[in-house]
């Protein structure tokens, strides 16, 4: 249960050093991505000018305010509330995101599935759990919106955030097939029969 201070981008070795139940605090850069961004990148043949190699992405679509461009707001957007959405919907894009763009870390809530675990194992990556619904807190870890691409999809644009002390986040899926979600779900499923019996359900 080690703690890792990581400055993005990270190497494959750094990603593979992350084990479930470890914690991570991220520094420097984080990319925001979600449903429409991924659908357009992988189903509609669009590309991004951003280099994501070795980077971390978070499943988000923030509340932002359009403002004049400045040093503080280089993309013309002020971040108002940046949180996290349910990751499971993004499951089928993980392998391509890693193999085609070099992404190493996915941050989200609720966990992801077997395709993602396989991609982590094959390519070297990890899933970090942020507490969903804790967006006011998460916003304090965002310094500014540095840049934005595919902004016709706003709010589901591809965002580049400058971050400081982003975390601590829990390593919930790793490159060794470990998933806290699977462990919890398996244990809960094992309790199902007893729980139904306690409710007087005839089986």
């Amino acid at each position, binding site marked *: 249960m080690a703690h890792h201070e990581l400055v993005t981008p990270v190497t494959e070795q750094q990603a593979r050093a992350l084990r479930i139940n470890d914690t991570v605090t991220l520094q420097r850069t984080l990319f925001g991505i979600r449903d*429409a961004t991924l659908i357009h990148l992988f189903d509609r043949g669009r590309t991004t000018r951003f280099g994501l190699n070795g980077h971390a992405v978070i499943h*988000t*679509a*923030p*509340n*932002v*305010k*359009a403002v004049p461009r400045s040093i503080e707001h280089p993309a013309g957007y002020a971040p*108002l*509330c*940046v*949180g*996290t*959405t*349910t990751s*499971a*919907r993004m499951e089928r894009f993980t392998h391509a995101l890693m193999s085609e763009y070099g992404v190493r870390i996915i941050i989200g*809530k*609720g*966990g992801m599935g077997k395709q993602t675990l396989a991609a982590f194992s094959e390519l070297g990556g990890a899933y970090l*759990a942020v*507490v*969903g*619904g*804790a*967006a*006011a*807190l*998460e*916003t*304090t870890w965002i310094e500014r919106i540095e840049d934005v691409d595919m902004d016709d999809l*706003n*709010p589901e644009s591809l965002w580049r955030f400058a971050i400081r002390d982003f975390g601590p986040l*829990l390593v*919930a899926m790793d490159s060794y097939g470990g998933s*806290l*979600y699977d*462990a*919890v*779900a398996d*244990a*809960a*499923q094992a*309790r*199902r029969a*007893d*729980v*139904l019996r*306690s*409710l*007087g*359900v*005839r089986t």
Partner: protein
Amino acid sequence: MLQIDLAQVETAAKELYVRALKQLPPDIKAGFARLSETETNATAQRVLGTMLTNIAVAERTDNLLCQDTGIPIYNVTIGSGVIVDGARLKAAIRRGCERATREHSLRSSIVHPITRVNEHSSCGREVPVMHFDFDASEQMSIEMIPKGSGSENNSFLKMAIPADGVDAIKTFVIDCVLNAGGKTCPPTIVGVGIGGTSDLCMHLAKRAAGRPLGTRCTDPGGAALEGELSNAVNSLGVGPQGLGGDSTAFAVHVELAATHITMNPVAVNMQCHSARRARATFSERGIEYGF
């Protein structure tokens, strides 16, 4: 008779959206305190602690609790002693919802279901969702619920049959909670609808999920099920965020309606831990805001 000023309705519809997104109702805060006292899992304690910190940060920084501005829902109850033009009332609520989005730079989470075009107004065809009900009072109340998609995506309906009995209802609720795992942002309020038609059953589940903590189903059979199912759901071990623990749900709420002799419908709709809602009451005293 109380004549409703529609300009005030528009302002209230706007204010309610913003208030709901920023202030968690006291019954939900009390629910967090209760779960924190009894939670035995260390990870779950940390997750609950982060959620409590977030509530404090949102209040201190006057920020939204969660980034998800949800699907806006307005539940309107009109008393016998109230005069209001229904069509204009709907239009005023819609304008208020749109103004909240534009004037407060809220993320519009609403798109056309086929083109996926976002009008950046939090409005669209049939949205905001509005429900109208009537009572014998001298007032009108508007409840606003920004329903988050993480929990809304975990909505389930089963048209069970009479031979399956209450066992089918209990089994369905347990399996819905198991299948939802962490995707609903637990701890949740598990709303269960029983009876009615298919659409009424789901509506009852939604109403149950939006009910304040501490309230009980007014039907004794429904109230008994609430107690049994609340204990059962929290012995599964799903825990906050699906990362394990005792705090899977604040409560299971049940709402029910009569149904057909051949039918035994059950629906589940969940509310996430950011169980946001706000209320404005119009009466002779003016407009009062609450939960």
